[in-house]
């Protein structure tokens, strides 16, 4: 049986709930299995980033529950949620968001240090990660000296360094040229194929959408279509393994 990674039930994010309610995410059901390579698409303002933030535990829904590997993250306290993110979720942001005062290697190492991983293990992982992203010769360079594509690769390495259950990427190719975007997608696909890493990314980029194996379309905060063979909503009790 395939393992469920993300199971979101009836989640809604409402701004101004007391006055003029605006539904950024409206009663969404989402079910992701391990190893999926999923694109979240939709026009601007459709709620893609909000949905990613909710799934990533960066924001709390007004309604509904989100289970990550069986843990309802909507019930976690702020402190526990930070710890949960650290150990379970990898993030890749649109504008890379690397720490400018740290080198590429230190950026990737930072998250492992937060996890308390031993130096020998960190070194081993870093060596492997930088080999995978093809930046073995750029480890000691600061982000400002890297190209956008290289920075985003380091961001992927950082997301992978913590050995998360899945990676959330918010428009990862938006700030990249076509070659860098293609290279990044190659890398993400490779990680998905070879390491069975689950990816959920929001995008406008047609090149990304074409390479996704599952495409979920959001319109006005609701799922308008889902190319998945499995239903988008499965009762939690049936899928948690």
């Amino acid at each position, binding site marked *: 049986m395939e393992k469920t990674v993300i199971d979101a039930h009836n989640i809604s994010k409402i701004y101004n709930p007391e006055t003029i309610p605006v539904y950024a995410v409206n009663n969404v059901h989402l079910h992701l299995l391990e190893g999926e390579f999923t694109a979240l698409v939709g026009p601007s303002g459709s709620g893609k980033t909000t949905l990613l*933030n909710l799934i*990533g535990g*960066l*924001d709390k829904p007004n309604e509904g529950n989100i289970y990550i590997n069986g843990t309802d993250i909507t019930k976690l306290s702020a*402190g526990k949620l*930070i*710890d949960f*993110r*650290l*150990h379970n979720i990898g*993030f890749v*942001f649109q504008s890379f*968001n690397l*720490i*400018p*005062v*740290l080198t590429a290697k*230190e950026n990737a*190492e*930072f*998250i492992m*240090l*937060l*996890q308390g991983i031993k130096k020998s293990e960190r070194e081993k992982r870093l060596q492997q990660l930088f080999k995978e992203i093809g930046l073995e010769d750029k480890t000691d360079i600061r982000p400002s000296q890297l190209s956008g594509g290289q920075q985003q690769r380091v961001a992927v390495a*950082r997301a992978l360094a*913590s050995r998360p259950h899945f990676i959330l990427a918010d428009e990862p190719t938006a700030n990249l040229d076509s070659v860098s975007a293609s290279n990044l997608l190659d890398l993400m696909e490779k990680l998905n194929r070879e390491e069975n890493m689950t990816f959920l990314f929001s995008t406008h980029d047609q090149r990304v959408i074409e390479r996704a194996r599952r495409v979920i379309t959001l319109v006005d905060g609701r799922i308008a279509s889902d190319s998945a063979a499995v239903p988008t909503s499965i009762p939690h009790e049936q899928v948690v393994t």
Partner: protein
Amino acid sequence: MILLMAWRNIWRNKARSIVIMLSVAIGLFAGIGVLALYKGMMKSRIRAVIDSEAGHLQIHHPDFKKDNHPAFILPDANALLKKVQSFPAVKMAVPRTLAQGMLVTTTGSAGVQINGVVPALEYSASQLKRKIIAGEGFHEGKKNEIVIGKKLADKMKLKLGAKLVLTFTDTADNLVSSAFRVAGIYQSGNAPFDELNVYVSLTTLNEWLLTGNSFHQIAVILKNDDDLQVMQDQLKKTYPSLLVQSWKDLSPETELMVKTVDEYSYIIMIIILVALAFGILNTMLMSILERTKEIGMMVALGTAKAKVFLLVLMETVFLTIAGTPIGFLAAYIVIGYYQKHGLDLSGMGKDMMASFGFETTIYPSFPSEKLVMILAMVICTALLSCLLPALKALRLQPVEALRR
């Protein structure tokens, strides 16, 4: 990693950080300078009290201080003097006969404290010889010579060689008067002292007071200032029937002044550091504001809020601490120079300083005993300065911070 980040973060805006570090350095330099100046002034004042006025300790008949009656001489005074001199911690013990009286000239009169002294001993004990600015002082074999302070000489229009009359009561309560000739005019740097105290020969005064070869006071000069309390206790224990007082008991205003100035110096230091704290606070707030997105991202990735707080705290501490050695070093060098060469403050009002008992040339003293306290105050400043920026950083919601 947090420490490394904190250190690198403060160099992201070099000019801003350097300005703050220099502010801390200048603030500390100024603060330590003030402390050193105060310490120098107080040391000078204490030295003046010990060396020129009271000595370290004084021994009297217990009733003498109550009404200053000349009958209250020290019992078996000469034997007592020898015994006191024999204490290893004692550098010198000098006898003094004391009387309160009126100094009368053709132009007026003034109340004075008449000190009957053994000139040779007094010259060393109270450095009277060094302080004489006119005349040679006492001449051997000459009776009825008097050395008066400059302030009194100016007030009574007395010049070297001038005649005056001292009137006082003897041990039998008879009013006696004797004429003296001014053999010297001294200036101690303490105008009120100079106005009040006159010196005559102990033998001469004893003859008029009918105190024989006894005296009222033994002034004790110690080899080491630090032995004061031990020696006072020892003398009190050895001579329980006598009054043994330290300069702190005899000159409580000096002791109070030392304590008050000590407190003032801390207040000045606090004012300087509070002013600095606002500068540091402003810098850190700007730094946090500029890095809102970055901090939001760190929290999003799973950085605990305690670590974010630690980052802001360490940045503030580094920013504050980095200027500290520069401030300390600059203060050490400048104070060292003036400690050797003296700082002439006569331009600030020689008479005013003298009227408070201060020398016009101050030798600032580096307040090494206060360095730990200053360092603690600097760290407290850093901690206080970081609180608001740290709270601002902690309140950042990653989802909002990432949107910026």
